[in-house]
């Protein structure tokens, strides 16, 4: 991940200072500063979009829109929160809006070949518990990732977003509450329900 919001506080402070300088310059139209900000945050923004939408091209388009939206709103960034948290807010809301509009205009969801409809799913999750798997470890790991991603996409957008923010992006409960504008108790309960639901969906593949 390009930047882990909940990583070492000292390193975060240094990065935050870097961000503030770049934000100042970018908000005055400095293209270099803006490109630097994009490079710094592009990985996690793209990961968030991809995990939420499940499509590489769509995620890239979404990430691009998120950065453009942030660029146009840079002057409104009040520096009360960290830049990454502010950017997470924009990114998450943009993805949720996109999912909402997609829900209104339903389209055929293309699932890859590993999406199993009934039948014997096989012990794919053994990979997680057994790091000394056989020669096809990489392939199986890719299959596992695809399976988890597919099951993640079957969750509601609210559950999906909180799982992505917590278990993929590694944000704290407090950061999630700030991004999603939720009370800490709501974050806790919603996260637990989302995890349990995903566990149930992966149950047939164990």
């Amino acid at each position: 991940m390009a930047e882990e919001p909940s990583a070492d506080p000292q390193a975060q402070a240094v990065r935050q200072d870097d961000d503030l300088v770049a934000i100042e310059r970018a908000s005055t139209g400095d293209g270099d500063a803006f490109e630097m900000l994009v490079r710094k945050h592009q990985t996690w923004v793209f990961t968030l979009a991809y995990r939420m939408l499940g499509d590489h091209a769509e995620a890239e388009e979404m990430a691009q829109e998120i950065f453009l939206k942030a660029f146009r709103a840079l002057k409104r960034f009040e520096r009360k929160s960290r830049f990454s948290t502010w950017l997470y807010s924009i990114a998450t809301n943009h993805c949720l809006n996109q999912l909402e509009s997609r829900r209104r205009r339903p389209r055929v969801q293309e699932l890859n070949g590993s999406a199993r409809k009934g039948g014997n799913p096989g012990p794919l999750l053994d990979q997680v518990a057994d790091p000394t798997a056989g020669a096809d470890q990489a392939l199986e790991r890719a299959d596992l990732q695809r399976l988890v991603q597919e099951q993640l996409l079957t969750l509601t957008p609210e559950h999906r977003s909180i799982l992505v923010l917590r278990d993929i992006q590694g944000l704290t409960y407090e950061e999630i509450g700030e991004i999603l504008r939720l009370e800490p108790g709501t974050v806790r309960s919603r996260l637990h329900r989302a995890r349990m639901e995903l566990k149930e969906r992966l149950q047939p593949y164990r």
Partner: protein
Amino acid sequence: MNCYDASARFSELRDGRLSGVGRTELEGHLAICPACRREWAHFQETIEALHGLGAVEPRPGFAARVREQAERPPWHRRLVRRLFVPWQVKLPLEAGALVLLAIGTVLIYQRSPEMRQVVERPGPQQPAVPVEPERRDAAPDLTPAYKKAREGKPSQQVGPLKRGASGSRADEVAPQAKADLDTSVGAVVRKPPPPEKSPLAAPSPPPAGAPADRRETILPSSSLPQSEARPVAPREAEESTQALSAPAPPPAPQPFRIMTLRTRDVAVAEERVREWVQQAGGRLLDPSPAGEPIPSGQRAFSVVIPTQAVARFDALLAELGQLFGKEQEVPRSNEALISLTISPKSPPPAKSE
């Protein structure tokens, strides 16, 4: 602690947010309950699987592409730039194009009645004028005064056309023309009946017992005996004609056109109109057959011209002076009956010294 309570705290235990008694109780329950232990293991596997998804990188050059998009001006600015920059070159060109477009639109609008007629009448049109004498001769029931009027000879006995004869179509007169008509005698442009029965284009004697032609009903104040000659309203004349030739079906609605020309020299204008109408293959019904007296200094008569020539007639009148009533629709038949009043322009007020 039961199994339900235990599973409800899995997330807190996993995230290190459970401590003290709660943590001890949960760990104690997991130690003695194999089902919850299995659930806890699956729960941990699920979260590990999510962690295993990891980060995904966009295609190379993503940041540069985003920067390019960010530096690109918004669409409305691009549109304005594309339309007007460089303004020294594009603005004059666009202004010229607009003027040409406006002129073209006006020209097309002015010529549209003829174009419409051509579209609606694909077959060759018979010239109305050459046929006219034979058919006119074949109309024995026309009164001498009416015949005289048809031939364009002046008659002092005929009253001017009453504007009220226009019936409901008077509402279609343009406001300016209406205002003008309030102060001076109006002119009438009458659409002839449908082409197959157009009495203006080819007047023929009506069969015995057939209803009288509506066109005739508005004309013949002059056809009355001299002793009874009085300004007769067309509606009244129509009713009397219909009463004589019963049974009479309700007459077809007669569209009309009122035009007034204000000019400096009424005599010159009248002369020019007469010449032009003759050249255009039309004829004058003189004076205008209607019910109101003509104020002194004015001339009122009806003109029958080919419909194709109406636009040219309008142009001629516009050359001669100030024209009112031109906005009305041109009839869609071979000929158009136009009742025209030529009135003098009031002289400019003398300057007081």
